[in-house]
């Protein structure tokens, strides 16, 4: 009897397993993610808004941000289409070597980014046969903007595919068959039945790809040429500012990238939520 009484008292004193896990997880996120982000934000904001604005609107910084955003958007749109198509093929079709192709999708995650850059330069660079051929036809890929978009596309390729794949796999074919029996063409079925279902996952993949592209350094710095106000993206600009003892300029532009990524993620989170609530 004494033993059971002690047990009850002892266990009532201990925090419940649930609370323990919650605390542990939040501490982990706080330490690894939130603390560094807060620190950099505080340091940047500590300079005062006018200084930040000054640093951001300086021609080289402004151009770098513009180039980064435009390239990221272009790449995101491309990725939305190609990533969805890739997921569709992987889920709905069978072909020899499918497991290998499926594993290859994740290759960009495993490859170091500067290796990606090197790979692209060797393949499309002005000295390769492909690069020379394209140059004759007036197309420049490496050391020009298309190269930047290509590098971004490669490193963010898995995001959309892997986002859409599971949703597509779970999709009940019954709905599509029903639409077909009601007279819908395959394209109409896809557009009005399947796509709305996939939209949230496509948007998630696009958001991830876009945010990643904003900050991509390793591959772009090898591929782009990095001429200020021509082929220099924001992460490379930030690196240059750090290296030339101008952390203030670096912080200001970093803050812009940080806030943009955050905004995009929140926005798309809301969109998804709204999409789910509509009951599609």
């Amino acid at each position, binding site marked *: 009897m004494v033993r059971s009484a002690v047990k009850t008292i002892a266990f009532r004193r201990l925090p419940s397993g649930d609370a323990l896990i919650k605390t542990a997880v939040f501490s982990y996120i706080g330490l690894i993610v939130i603390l560094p982000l807060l620190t950099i934000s505080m340091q940047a904001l500590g300079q005062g808004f006018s200084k930040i604005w000054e640093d951001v609107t300086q021609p080289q910084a402004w151009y770098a941000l513009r180039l980064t955003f435009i390239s990221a958007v272009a790449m995101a749109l491309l990725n939305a289409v190609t990533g969805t198509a890739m997921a569709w093929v992987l889920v709905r079709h069978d072909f020899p070597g499918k497991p290998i192709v499926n594993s290859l999708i994740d290759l960009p995650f495993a490859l170091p980014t500067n290796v990606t850059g090197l790979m692209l330069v060797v393949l499309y660079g002005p*000295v390769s046969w492909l690069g020379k051929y394209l140059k004759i036809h007036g197309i420049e890929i490496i*050391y020009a903007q298309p190269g930047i978009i290509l590098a971004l596309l490669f490193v963010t390729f898995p995001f959309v595919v892997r986002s859409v794949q599971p949703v597509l796999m779970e999709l009940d074919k019954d709905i599509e068959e029903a639409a077909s029996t009601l007279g819908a063409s395959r394209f109409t079925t896809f557009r009005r039945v399947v796509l709305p279902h996939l939209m949230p996952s496509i948007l998630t993949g696009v958001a991830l790809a876009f945010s990643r592209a904003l900050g991509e350094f390793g591959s772009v710095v090898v591929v782009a*040429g990095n001429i*200020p*106000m*021509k082929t220099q993206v924001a992460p490379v600009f930030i690196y*240059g500012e750090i*290296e030339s003892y101008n952390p203030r300029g670096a912080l200001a532009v970093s803050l812009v990238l940080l806030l943009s990524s955050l905004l995009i993620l929140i926005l798309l989170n809301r969109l998804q939520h709204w999409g789910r609530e509509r009951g599609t």
Partner: protein
Amino acid sequence: MKKSHYQMFWALAIAIPLLLFFSESALPQQARTLILGAYTVPKEAYQQEIIPAFQKYWLEKTGQSVKFEESYVASGAQARAIISGFEADVAALSLEGDLAKVAEAGLINHDWRARATKGMVTQSVVAIGYRTGNPKGIKDWEDLTQPGVEVIYPNPKTSGGAMWCVNAIYGAGLKLSEAKTGKQDLVFAAKLLHDIQKNVKVMDKSGRESVTTFERGVGDAIVTYENEALLRQFEGVEFPFVVPRATILIENPVAVVDRNVDKHGTRDLAEAFVEFCLTEAAQRSFAKFGLRPVLPNIAEEFKAKFPRPEMLFDMSYLGGWTGVEKTIYGPEGVWTKAVENIATGK
């Protein structure tokens, strides 16, 4: 096992490691460690000749063996690393400005410039590399301004060493105009820089990376350091180059990092190493790897390998490192403006 055997086993298991641990430190310390924080260019010279020679010299002199821990990264990055806590005993950097930053941070409190040879240990000059056979006829700075000539050099923002290249171009403009009219023509120099920058399509993060890009086949000409070209030639690679008539003298400093040597108790070692780098043997080693020696008699010995440009100038001609920070790289600086003008199509 019997109980007494267990006891003996545990007694030995605890005692032996303890004995070993304490006897280690009881032994007279024969091996000492010296930490070198250097930039990338002299790596081969240090690793292959100067460090082994010093280790031999110190062993013969004191009976102590010296272990070296070295780091070779871009000069600016190395300076920043030392400032943020990398405990280098000796700092060998590419430019005076970087070493000055280390001193400003309180790590060096002796006047390293007061040493013989002004604190410098090697020299080089900015040179222009071109393709085998020189199809574009590169001979001097003006040839780099011609349309259709692709030039590459590193980004002065990401590499302190890269600033030598841009400084050389601008300074050459000043020198050339001075030679012609007796006065420095800032407009002429700015235009020279502008016209060359216009032909630049790739700016790598450091001088070494620029050489790699050039060797990969990009560009018709590369603005680089003479020692990079000589090193590649020494390694058997074809790397023709020309030293322009007007170019800048690159001077590389080395210094003992006071705070770290006092902490590690390696002051005697560090000072001996710095002195050793200025001995004839070490200077010859540097020369072998393409770096110009600072000792006058050794420089004389290698006169043929390192011809003196007719219009050689150094950083003081441009107002020193603090001067160029503003006049060339500042928000209204010549290079900044050149880049902006090129981008906006002026």
